[in-house]
């Protein structure tokens, strides 16, 4: 399925509002049939990017090509990219059938063909027989299906989804995710989906693009983004890692020592990063939450105070606080006999050198860990 030229090639696209740089120098290539998730915190520019692709927001600079042709709102190729909006944007004065059929009637499809295709698509999204319903009579999940059907009925090459499952409950959301996965598989659609939900991106995407402040932080498959972060922002945002900021003090025989506000810690250089590690450089020290042990000896040790405990299935997620580095997340199996000891408030954390790694940073690129609410972060990973 992967041809040499990507289906969609985005070259240094920027978008500037009056006082805000929403996107800067965004480049990205999408292959035919790929499911790409644009992941990032609020205000990272991901929706803006999708609207530029949808042809409803002009870009300030850069170029987008589709199948090698320049894409702009007036080009005939724009019709191949159809969007499902965050607010769904269903037309409230039309019934379900007219909403779904709107794009077809614009394209001049005869009434009979239109009705056939609308019925077919409604069946596909599980809304057979809903054609005559008014939009405001539908539940949230049904409205999302209508929005999806309105895009799918046009058999687009690229489906753009802007947080399509934002406002619905978890159960319904997983149903709709399954539907989306099914449609992606059966129709061979290329999907670009914007989300701030990490678990959704991990569950659906073949490729994840992490955005922050309008810049691409990392592009890769879910495993890479999760386990081999290239920037401190990605390591922190994905939620499963602890990130301490510090300075590289020594680099001897593949062991790097990083001085943080809570003391010196040792780790290995990340094999997937090609950046040189130089003494004196700013760096982010990263340790996986699952690799932090409690009440045991280790090559790195840290005393901390427990802030909260949260049971998630077979895991207990502990948030501890150490002076200088703030909140630390660690995951302990409930079967672990030491869980009983967790009643105490003071805790000794330890981890191996081989479980931690360092990401060298240009000084200005990552100032402070993003203030993600710790409880939210725990739930994101669940």
């Amino acid at each position, binding site marked *: 399925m992967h041809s040499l030229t990507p289906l969609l090639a985005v070259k240094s696209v920027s978008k500037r509002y009056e006082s805000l740089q929403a996107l800067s120098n965004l480049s990205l290539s999408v292959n035919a049939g790929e499911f790409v998730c644009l992941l990032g915190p609020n205000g990272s520019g991901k929706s803006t990017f999708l609207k530029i692709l949808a*042809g*409803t927001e002009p870009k300030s600079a850069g170029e987008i090509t589709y199948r090698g042709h320049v894409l702009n709102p007036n080009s005939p190729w724009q019709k191949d990219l159809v969007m499902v909006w965050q607010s769904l*944007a269903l037309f409230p004065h039309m019934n379900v059938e007219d909403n779904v059929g709107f794009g077809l009637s614009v394209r001049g499809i005869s009434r009979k063909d239109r009705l056939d295709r609308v019925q077919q698509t409604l069946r596909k999204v599980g809304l057979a027989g809903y054609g005559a319903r008014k939009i405001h009579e539908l539940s949230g999940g049904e409205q999302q299906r209508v929005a999806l059907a309105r895009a799918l009925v046009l058999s687009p090459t690229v489906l753009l989804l802007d947080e399509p499952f934002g406002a619905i409950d978890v159960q319904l959301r997983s149903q709709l995710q399954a539907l989306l996965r099914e449609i992606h598989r059966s129709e061979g659609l290329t999907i670009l989906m914007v989300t701030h939900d990490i678990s959704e991106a991990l569950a659906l995407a073949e490729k994840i693009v992490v955005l922050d402040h309008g810049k691409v932080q990392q592009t890769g498959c879910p495993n890479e983004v999760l386990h081999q972060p290239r920037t401190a922002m990605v390591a922190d945002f994905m939620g499963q890692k602890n990130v301490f900021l510090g300075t590289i003090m020594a680099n001897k025989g593949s062991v790097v020592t990083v001085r943080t506000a809570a003391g010196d810690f040792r780790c290995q250089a990340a094999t997937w990063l090609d950046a040189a590690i130089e003494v004196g450089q700013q760096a982010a020290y990263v340790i996986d939450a699952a690799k932090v042990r409690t009440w045991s000896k280790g090559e790195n040790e840290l005393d901390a105070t427990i802030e909260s405990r949260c049971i998630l299935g077979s895991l207990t997620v502990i948030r501890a606080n150490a002076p200088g580095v703030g909140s630390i997340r660690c995951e302990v199996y409930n079967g672990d006999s030491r869980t009983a000891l967790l009643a105490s408030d003071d805790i000794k954390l330890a981890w191996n050198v081989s479980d931690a790694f360092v990401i060298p940073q240009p000084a200005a690129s990552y100032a402070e860990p993003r203030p993600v609410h710790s409880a939210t972060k725990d739930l994101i990973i669940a």
Partner: protein
Amino acid sequence: MKVSGTLLLRAYLCLALVCLAVPVLSMIWLSFDANQLPSIPIRNYSLHWYEEVWQNPDIREGLINSVIVGLSVAALSVLLGLVSAYWLCRRLSARMSPLYVSIVSLPCFAPLLLAGMAMLMYFQTIQLAGNIGAIIAAHTCYCSPFALSLIRLSYERLNPELECAARNLGAGNFRTIFMIIVPQLWPALAAAAMLSFLVSWDEFVMSWFVGGFTKTLPMVLYDMIGSSYNPSVNAVGTVVTLVSGVVLFTVLVLSQRSQTAKEARE
């Protein structure tokens, strides 16, 4: 204490309503008096004056002119209001929109007398003065800001993604406006049209300045009062008031209905 307060309030309300209604109601009542000099109590009820009015060519012409002017003004004001509302809500930056609103609202704030005179001078230089077109133009200048503010209120509440969605599905400007925007704004558009009609229907000062020998109904009435007392004024007044009342009532019902429909949807 509480009861008497409520009573006082009610009495005040009744008094206010009576003061407002009595002059109009007495005009309507007296229009049915057959006497040359209407007096209370009325001895002979008749539709004599209505017949008179119907047969008076001046009044008939004024009526026709007023209807033509009113309908044209309503259509033009709504069109201008819709376009301006679109610009204000979707295109202009937040910094520019107050400036835009102030400029388009200027004709409303200038004293009518001066506005009428200024328009007469301007229309004379572009050779538009003295015909029905001049009256329509003057009224549209005056009415369209009202139409704009009514339409804008509704437009601001419209989800901008609806238009984006329509465009993304392939609709051009024309289709987006007439299939997506207008159907959702129609209560506001109708209200704006009727309000513009009403204002134009009653307007005298500007028409008098720019109209020349083209007379609308209020101008005909003025002439009738000016020359000598003619009891058919009452009949004309009743017709004018009735039309205004019906239009106003429709506006109120429409806005009420659009409000409840919106609430039901939410």
